[in-house]
Protein backbone atom coordinates (compact mmCIF):
# COMPACT_ATOMS: atom_id res chain seq x y z
CA UNK A 1 0.00 0.00 0.00
CA UNK A 2 1.50 3.28 -1.04
CA UNK A 3 1.74 6.33 1.15
CA UNK A 4 -0.97 8.03 -0.87
CA UNK A 5 -3.42 5.22 -0.24
CA UNK A 6 -2.54 5.19 3.41
CA UNK A 7 -3.08 8.91 3.68
CA UNK A 8 -6.49 8.53 2.06
CA UNK A 9 -7.30 5.76 4.48
CA UNK A 10 -6.44 7.89 7.45
CA UNK A 11 -8.27 10.90 6.08
CA UNK A 12 -11.29 8.66 5.66
CA UNK A 13 -11.21 7.82 9.37
CA UNK A 14 -10.62 11.44 10.32
CA UNK A 15 -13.50 12.67 8.18
CA UNK A 16 -15.78 10.10 9.73
CA UNK A 17 -14.77 11.15 13.23
CA UNK A 18 -15.11 14.84 12.41
CA UNK A 19 -18.70 14.36 11.31
CA UNK A 20 -19.44 12.34 14.42
CA UNK A 21 -18.18 15.31 16.43
CA UNK A 22 -20.35 17.66 14.31
CA UNK A 23 -17.24 19.34 12.85
CA UNK A 24 -18.63 19.47 9.35
CA UNK A 25 -16.21 22.00 7.92
CA UNK A 26 -13.27 20.06 9.23
CA UNK A 27 -14.57 16.92 7.57
CA UNK A 28 -14.85 18.88 4.34
CA UNK A 29 -11.19 19.74 4.58
CA UNK A 30 -10.30 16.09 4.99
CA UNK A 31 -12.49 14.97 2.10
CA UNK A 32 -11.06 17.62 -0.22
CA UNK A 33 -7.52 16.74 0.73
CA UNK A 34 -8.16 13.04 0.16
CA UNK A 35 -9.63 13.74 -3.28
CA UNK A 36 -6.68 15.91 -4.20
CA UNK A 37 -4.21 13.24 -3.10
CA UNK A 38 -6.11 10.64 -5.10
CA UNK A 39 -6.02 12.68 -8.28
CA UNK A 40 -2.37 13.62 -7.93
CA UNK A 41 -1.32 10.04 -7.33
CA UNK A 42 -3.84 8.55 -9.74
CA UNK A 43 -4.97 5.96 -7.25
CA UNK A 44 -8.69 6.66 -7.00
CA UNK A 45 -10.74 6.58 -3.85
CA UNK A 46 -12.22 3.56 -2.11
CA UNK A 47 -15.83 2.92 -3.00
CA UNK A 48 -16.99 3.53 0.53
CA UNK A 49 -15.33 6.93 0.49
CA UNK A 50 -16.95 7.87 -2.81
CA UNK A 51 -20.38 6.79 -1.70
CA UNK A 52 -20.25 8.51 1.67
CA UNK A 53 -18.99 11.92 0.61
CA UNK A 54 -21.15 14.59 -0.93
CA UNK A 55 -20.12 15.64 -4.44
CA UNK A 56 -21.62 19.08 -3.99
CA UNK A 57 -20.59 20.28 -0.55
CA UNK A 58 -17.77 17.72 0.07
CA UNK A 59 -18.94 16.79 3.54
CA UNK A 60 -18.53 13.21 4.69
CA UNK A 61 -21.95 11.59 4.90
CA UNK A 62 -22.88 9.80 8.06
CA UNK A 63 -26.41 8.37 7.98
CA UNK A 64 -28.39 9.62 10.93
CA UNK A 65 -26.21 12.69 11.31
CA UNK A 66 -26.20 14.52 8.01
CA UNK A 67 -27.44 12.00 5.45
CA UNK A 68 -30.68 10.23 4.71
CA UNK A 69 -30.58 6.80 3.13
CA UNK A 70 -33.71 5.42 1.49
CA UNK A 71 -34.14 2.39 -0.70
CA UNK A 72 -36.35 2.66 -3.72
CA UNK A 73 -37.09 0.38 -6.59
CA UNK A 74 -33.70 -1.04 -7.52
CA UNK A 75 -31.65 1.82 -6.13
CA UNK A 76 -30.60 3.50 -2.91
CA UNK A 77 -31.01 7.25 -2.58
CA UNK A 78 -28.59 9.07 -0.28
CA UNK A 79 -29.60 12.64 0.49
CA UNK A 80 -27.13 15.09 1.96
CA UNK A 81 -28.26 17.88 4.26
CA UNK A 82 -27.39 20.31 1.49
CA UNK A 83 -30.02 18.68 -0.72
CA UNK A 84 -27.76 16.72 -3.00
CA UNK A 85 -29.15 13.34 -4.05
CA UNK A 86 -27.04 10.38 -5.03
CA UNK A 87 -28.44 7.15 -6.38
CA UNK A 88 -26.77 3.78 -6.42
CA UNK A 89 -28.20 0.64 -7.94
CA UNK A 90 -28.44 -2.53 -5.96
CA UNK A 91 -29.21 -6.09 -6.92
CA UNK A 92 -32.30 -7.28 -5.14
Amino acid at each position, binding site marked *: *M*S*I*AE*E*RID*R*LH*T*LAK*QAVAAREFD*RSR*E*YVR*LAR*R*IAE*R*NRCGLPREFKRFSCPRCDVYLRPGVNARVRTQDGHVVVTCDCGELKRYPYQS
Partner: protein
Amino acid sequence: MALTPETLTRHELNGLSVRVVDAGNPDLVGIAGRVVIETMQTLHIDDGDRVRQVPKRGATLEFALTAGEPEFTDGGYPSPSMNRSRTDEAAGRRKASGSTFKRESETAGVLPGQSGSTRKGSPDGDGRTPSRTGDCEDVVYVTVDGAQLLSRPAHRTENAGDSKWR
Protein backbone atom coordinates in the same frame (compact mmCIF):
# COMPACT_ATOMS: atom_id res chain seq x y z
CA MET B 1 5.01 2.05 3.58
CA ALA B 2 3.58 2.56 6.95
CA LEU B 3 3.92 5.69 8.96
CA THR B 4 7.44 5.51 10.31
CA PRO B 5 9.90 8.20 11.35
CA GLU B 6 11.39 7.95 7.87
CA THR B 7 8.12 8.47 6.02
CA LEU B 8 6.64 11.00 8.41
CA THR B 9 7.43 14.05 6.30
CA ARG B 10 5.65 12.48 3.35
CA HIS B 11 2.75 11.09 5.28
CA GLU B 12 -0.49 12.46 6.64
CA LEU B 13 -0.01 14.79 9.59
CA ASN B 14 -3.67 15.34 10.40
CA GLY B 15 -4.62 13.49 13.55
CA LEU B 16 -1.11 13.04 14.86
CA SER B 17 -0.11 14.11 18.35
CA VAL B 18 2.44 16.86 18.25
CA ARG B 19 4.29 19.16 20.59
CA VAL B 20 5.92 22.43 19.60
CA VAL B 21 9.46 22.27 20.92
CA ASP B 22 10.69 25.48 19.41
CA ALA B 23 9.08 28.22 17.36
CA GLY B 24 9.86 31.67 16.07
CA ASN B 25 7.11 33.06 18.24
CA PRO B 26 7.92 32.18 21.87
CA ASP B 27 4.23 32.13 22.75
CA LEU B 28 3.78 29.06 20.60
CA VAL B 29 6.46 26.99 22.30
CA GLY B 30 4.98 24.19 24.36
CA ILE B 31 1.67 23.77 22.54
CA ALA B 32 0.75 20.12 22.57
CA GLY B 33 -2.20 18.46 20.93
CA ARG B 34 -3.41 16.90 17.74
CA VAL B 35 -2.99 18.29 14.27
CA VAL B 36 -6.44 19.04 12.92
CA ILE B 37 -5.75 20.98 9.74
CA GLU B 38 -2.60 21.37 7.72
CA THR B 39 -2.02 24.23 5.33
CA MET B 40 1.00 24.96 3.18
CA GLN B 41 2.79 27.01 5.82
CA THR B 42 1.00 26.25 9.06
CA LEU B 43 -0.41 23.52 11.22
CA HIS B 44 -3.59 23.95 13.24
CA ILE B 45 -3.10 22.20 16.55
CA ASP B 46 -6.06 21.47 18.79
CA ASP B 47 -4.70 21.57 22.33
CA GLY B 48 -7.98 20.48 23.87
CA ASP B 49 -8.95 24.04 24.65
CA ARG B 50 -8.77 25.84 21.37
CA VAL B 51 -7.19 25.44 17.96
CA ARG B 52 -3.81 27.14 17.66
CA GLN B 53 -2.23 27.92 14.31
CA VAL B 54 1.52 27.35 14.27
CA PRO B 55 3.74 28.37 11.36
CA LYS B 56 5.89 25.53 10.10
CA ARG B 57 8.77 27.79 9.23
CA GLY B 58 11.10 28.19 12.17
CA ALA B 59 9.30 25.65 14.31
CA THR B 60 10.67 22.41 15.68
CA LEU B 61 7.93 19.86 16.09
CA GLU B 62 7.93 16.64 18.02
CA PHE B 63 5.45 14.09 16.75
CA ALA B 64 4.41 11.13 18.87
CA LEU B 65 3.84 8.04 16.78
CA THR B 66 2.08 5.10 18.32
CA ALA B 67 2.55 1.67 16.85
CA GLY B 68 -1.17 1.08 16.45
CA GLU B 69 -3.59 3.39 14.70
CA PRO B 70 -2.81 6.84 16.01
CA GLU B 71 -6.18 8.20 14.93
CA PHE B 72 -8.07 5.90 17.24
CA THR B 73 -6.38 7.01 20.42
CA ASP B 74 -8.39 9.98 21.53
CA GLY B 75 -7.19 12.63 23.89
CA GLY B 76 -4.30 14.91 23.20
CA TYR B 77 -0.63 14.40 23.46
CA PRO B 78 -0.08 11.33 25.60
CA SER B 79 0.19 12.61 29.18
CA PRO B 80 2.61 15.52 28.80
CA SER B 81 3.51 15.77 32.47
CA MET B 82 4.44 12.13 32.68
CA ASN B 83 6.45 12.21 29.51
CA ARG B 84 8.40 15.29 30.40
CA SER B 85 11.33 13.48 31.97
CA ARG B 86 11.38 10.89 29.25
CA THR B 87 11.54 13.35 26.40
CA ASP B 88 14.21 15.35 28.17
CA GLU B 89 16.22 12.25 28.56
CA ALA B 90 15.66 11.45 24.91
CA ALA B 91 16.70 14.94 23.94
CA GLY B 92 19.89 14.55 25.91
CA ARG B 93 20.65 11.37 24.09
CA ARG B 94 19.87 13.00 20.80
CA LYS B 95 22.21 15.86 21.52
CA ALA B 96 24.96 13.43 22.37
CA SER B 97 24.55 11.36 19.26
CA GLY B 98 23.18 13.39 16.41
CA SER B 99 23.79 17.08 17.12
CA THR B 100 20.30 18.25 16.29
CA PHE B 101 21.19 21.85 16.88
CA LYS B 102 23.99 21.93 14.40
CA ARG B 103 21.73 20.40 11.79
CA GLU B 104 19.03 22.90 12.55
CA SER B 105 21.42 25.76 11.98
CA GLU B 106 22.45 24.22 8.68
CA THR B 107 18.91 24.02 7.45
CA ALA B 108 18.29 27.53 8.69
CA GLY B 109 21.27 28.66 6.67
CA VAL B 110 19.94 27.10 3.50
CA LEU B 111 16.37 28.12 4.07
CA PRO B 112 16.27 31.74 2.82
CA GLY B 113 17.21 30.84 -0.73
CA GLN B 114 14.81 27.96 -0.86
CA SER B 115 11.38 27.90 -2.40
CA GLY B 116 8.41 26.56 -0.52
CA SER B 117 8.14 23.05 -1.76
CA THR B 118 11.59 21.97 -2.80
CA ARG B 119 13.75 20.87 0.01
CA LYS B 120 17.26 19.74 0.35
CA GLY B 121 17.99 16.57 2.21
CA SER B 122 21.24 16.62 4.09
CA PRO B 123 23.04 13.35 3.53
CA ASP B 124 22.84 12.11 7.08
CA GLY B 125 19.30 11.46 8.11
CA ASP B 126 18.20 14.99 7.09
CA GLY B 127 17.02 16.33 10.38
CA ARG B 128 14.58 13.63 11.36
CA THR B 129 15.71 12.20 14.62
CA PRO B 130 13.64 9.27 15.80
CA SER B 131 14.10 8.65 19.46
CA ARG B 132 12.86 5.28 20.49
CA THR B 133 12.27 5.17 24.20
CA GLY B 134 12.77 1.76 25.67
CA ASP B 135 10.48 1.89 28.67
CA CYS B 136 7.47 3.39 26.92
CA GLU B 137 5.10 1.11 25.10
CA ASP B 138 5.44 1.60 21.35
CA VAL B 139 5.46 5.38 21.32
CA VAL B 140 8.14 6.85 19.09
CA TYR B 141 8.90 10.53 19.24
CA VAL B 142 10.06 12.08 16.02
CA THR B 143 11.52 15.55 15.95
CA VAL B 144 11.09 17.36 12.68
CA ASP B 145 12.27 20.76 11.58
CA GLY B 146 9.12 22.55 10.46
CA ALA B 147 10.86 23.82 7.33
CA GLN B 148 10.88 20.25 6.04
CA LEU B 149 7.11 20.27 5.97
CA LEU B 150 6.77 23.45 3.93
CA SER B 151 4.74 22.09 1.08
CA ARG B 152 1.17 21.86 0.01
CA PRO B 153 -0.40 19.06 2.02
CA ALA B 154 -1.46 17.13 -1.06
CA HIS B 155 1.98 17.43 -2.69
CA ARG B 156 4.04 16.39 0.28
CA THR B 157 3.77 12.68 -0.51
CA GLU B 158 5.60 13.21 -3.79
CA ASN B 159 8.23 15.79 -3.12
CA ALA B 160 9.03 16.04 0.57
CA GLY B 161 11.93 14.19 1.99
CA ASP B 162 14.00 12.28 -0.46
CA SER B 163 14.16 14.30 -3.64
CA LYS B 164 17.50 13.96 -5.39
CA TRP B 165 17.15 17.31 -7.09
CA ARG B 166 19.06 20.21 -5.72
